[in-house]
C-alpha cells in the first residue's frame, strides 16, 4: 500500500527499543504480489465498467433519486 513507508525511528512501547527497518517495510515479495493483485482487480473492474457501465448506472440511478448514496 505504501511502498515508501520506511521509518527507522519507529519504536515500541516505552522501552526505547527500536523496531527493525525490516519490520516497517513491506517485504518485496508481498509488495509485488499485492501490486499484481491490485492491477488484476483494477483492470477487471475497468473492463466490466466499460462493457456494463450503462446497465450499472441504470440500476444505481433508480436508487439515486430516492436516497443519498455517498
Amino acid at each position, binding site marked *: 500500500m505504501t511502498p515508501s513507508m520506511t521509518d527507522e525511528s519507529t519504536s515500541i512501547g516505552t522501552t526505547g527499543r527500536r523496531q527493525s527497518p525490516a519490520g516497517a*517495510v513491506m517485504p518485496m515479495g508481498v509488495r509485488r504480489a499485492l501490486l499484481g493483485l491490485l492491477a488484476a482487480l483494477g483492470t*477487471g473492474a475497468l473492463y466490466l465498467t466499460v462493457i456494463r457501465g450503462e446497465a*450499472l448506472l441504470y440500476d444505481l440511478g433508480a436508487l439515486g433519486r*430516492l*436516497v443519498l*448514496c455517498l
Partner: protein
Amino acid sequence: MHDQRGERDGVAGRLSPLWMVVLAAATVAAISMGLRQVVGLYMVPVTETIGVGRTAFGLAIAVANIVWGLTAPIAGAIADKSGTGRIVVFGAATTITGLLVLYGARSEAHLLLSGVFLGLGVAGSGTGAMVGAVGRRAPPERRTQAIAAVGIGGGFGMLIALPYTHLLMESLGWQASLVVLAATAALMLALAVPLAGRPVASPHESQRLGEALHEAARHPSFWLLNAGFFVCGFHIVFYATHLPAFVADKGLGPEVGVVGLALIGVGNLIGTWLAGEWGRYWPQRFGLSLIYGLRAVMFLGFLSLPITMTTVAVLSFAFGMLWLSTVPLTSGLVATFFGTKWMTMLYGIVFLSHQAGAFLGAWLGGVIFDRLQSYDAMWWISVALGILAALVNVPIVEKPVARLARPTPSA
C-alpha cells in the same frame, strides 16, 4: 510536533509490523466501503421479489447512513479503548448479519433491520474506524501518509465493488450473490488479527473519554475542522447523487455519467495519495483550504463551461482528486490537536458533521431541482460553501493542546 512513540496498538512483544497494520486496515476499509457501495444495486430485485415499494428500500439505505454517522464516534471510542481488532470483528459480524437479513427479507421491517446492521457494520469497519489503529502506529511525520493508504484502500474497494457485484448478481442471482458478499465480509474477521491489541497510552495521553470530549468541545480549531468537513459531505453527496440526473438534463447520454463516476473513483485514489504526501511536508490546514478552494473553482466550471463529454470527464476527474483527499488531512489534524489516544472517536465526531452535510446536500439538491427545474442554484451554493470551507480552515491552530505540549513525565 509532539512525540507519541509511547502509544502503540497491541501488546508489547506481539506487535504486527507497521506495513501489516496498514495493509490490514486498508483491506478492511476496501471490503467495508465496497460492500456498502453495492447495496443500492439490490433495490430493484429485492423490492420486486418481496413486493414492497422502493421507498422502503431507500429508507433502509438512509437508515444505514444515519446509523453509520451516529455510531461512528461510539465505535471509535471502543476502538480507542479496547483496540481496533475488536471493533473490526463487530463491524464484520454486523455487516454479515445485515447482508443475510437482506437475503431473507420478507417485509419492509426486514429491510430497515438490514439497514441498521449495515450501518453498524460500516461504522465498525469503514475507513473512519481504521484511522486510530494506523495513526497510533505510524510516526507523526508519516501519519497522514499511512492514513491516506487506508483511504486509498477504501476508495479502491468502492471503485471495484460495483462492477464485480453487478456481474455476480447476473451470474448467480441476487440472493446467491448476497451470500458471496457475506463471505467476503467474513474475510474482515481474519484481518482483525493484525489490528488486535489494546492501545497503550503514553504517560501524557492518559485521558478519560469524558475529558477528551470536554477538551475537544472547548477547542475552537476542532469546531472549524467540523465546519469544513460538513461542507465536504455536502459537496460529495450532492455531486455523486445528482451527477447522473444533471448529465441527462443537459441532453448527454448515460455513458457520460458512467465515465464521470468512474473518473471520480480513479481521481480519488490519486488525490488521496497526494493528500497523504502533502501532510508530510506542509501544514495540513492549508491542504484542506486548497482542496475546498479548488472544489469551488471546479463547481464554477460547471456553471460557466459548456457541458460536454469532455468537460464532465475533466471536471469529474478533478472532483475525484478532491473527493476523499480530505480524510487523511482532517484525521491528521485531529491527532495533531489531541494526540492519538481518542483519535478514532474524535474523528467519528467530525465524521458525524460530514454526514449531516451529506444529508443536506442530497436533500437540498432534490428540493432545489424540483422547485427551479435547474441545478444552477445548487452549484452556486456549492461554490459559496467551498470558499467558506477554504476560509474556515486557515485560522486553525495546527499544534497540540497544552496537555500534550507539557514535558513527558519520567518514563
